[in-house]
């Protein structure tokens, strides 16, 4: 049960990417992908929570009774989510209001729980942290791609900066992109592209 660090990184980023391979965890974050900044904050929070939970679960793995491990994992995750939520509220109250309930919803994000259960529970702390981090990053890069597309096409800006051409009247803003249906369409398109590339790799 030992994987080389390089394999752990590659699996998390691409080969077993949580979003387009396993379709996990899109629930709690897709709603904030209409603006790049919100998405970035969400992604950082999620990566930190995944990393720390994986570390804790891995450290406690020999002392956790098998039959209540789910409950223990949930409590560990909830603990870190509360910390992230309080930090945001204290230092960036505006962002905390924008994200609303979605920071709290990281608790039910299947990725965090999935990594704790599938990897951290049976591996030493070092690889567990690495695995949590790269799964978080693999998740983040797809969400950021979605957010960039949505904000660019919908409002002609990225991170609030106006982009040449897209912010001018020549570009008809696709308002639908910043509304919920846009999120579904962009995610489906990205899924399509990534899976097609993946299928070609397998054939080789």
């Amino acid at each position, binding site marked *: 049960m030992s994987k080389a660090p390089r394999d752990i990184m590659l699996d998390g980023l691409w080969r077993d990417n949580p979003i387009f391979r396993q*379709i*996990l*965890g*899109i*629930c*709690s974050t*897709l*709603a904030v992908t209409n603006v790049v900044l919100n998405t970035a904050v969400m992604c950082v929070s999620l990566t930190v929570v995944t990393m720390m939970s994986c570390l804790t679960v891995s450290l406690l793995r020999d002392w956790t009774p098998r039959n209540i491990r789910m*409950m223990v994992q*949930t*409590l560990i995750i*909830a*603990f870190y*989510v*509360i910390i992230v*939520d*309080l930090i945001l509220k204290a230092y960036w109250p505006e962002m905390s209001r924008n994200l*609303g*309930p979605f920071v*709290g*919803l990281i*608790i*039910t*994000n*299947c990725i965090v*729980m999935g990594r704790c259960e599938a990897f951290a529970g049976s591996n030493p702390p070092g690889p567990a942290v690495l695995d949590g981090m790269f799964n978080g990053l693999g998740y983040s890069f797809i969400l950021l791609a979605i957010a960039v597309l949505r904000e660019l096409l919908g409002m002609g800006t990225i991170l609030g900066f106006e982009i040449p051409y897209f912010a001018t009247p020549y570009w008809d803003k696709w308002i*639908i992109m910043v*509304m*919920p*249906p*846009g*999120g*579904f*369409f962009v*995610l*489906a398109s990205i*899924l*399509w*592209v990534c*899976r*097609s590339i993946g*299928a070609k790799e397998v054939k080789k």
Partner: protein
Amino acid sequence: MNGIGQDVWMAVVTCFAAIFTQNILLTTFLGMCPFTSVSREVKAAIGLGVAVVFVMTFTTVLNWLAYYWVLVPLKLEFFRFILFIIIIAAFVQFVEMVVDRYSPKLYQTLGIFLPLITVNCAILGTSLFMVIREHSFIVTIGYGFGSGVGWLLAILAMAGIRQRLNESRVPEGLRGPGITLIIAGLMALAFVGFTGVLS
């Protein structure tokens, strides 16, 4: 009396808003995981949907009581994530035991869906929205029920469409979750049409 009447009216409006204009699945993407995996068959979709309506209504109300009667007086509001999760898990477990004991037939159809619900983001999401929007008690009842019905409506429609989809040829990379998301997008687009009906 007038106050209560107004509250009930607000509850009804909130309920309809939660079903149509602010559908928890189609506007906030909550509960996507079971949505993409269980929506292959109409029958399973109904089973899960009904279970969600039931659990969502009761846990939202229970969480309201726990939040305003226990956490707010103790100034422990930040503790709500853990408390809500525990209440939801305990409630689902309790319902499972009751159903198993008194109605084995219902347990067979509904039972397998109950454990899935504990990790359904939509349930926790509804409770968190309820706190942020500062709903009163009566409005919370309407909101919890409406959100559940909205979710049921969405998964039912999706299952119906996906059964038809079995015969159509979908591009390779889009099969499964991809096409489900596109359909969900079209449904969300249709639901955008309800905006403005309630204001």
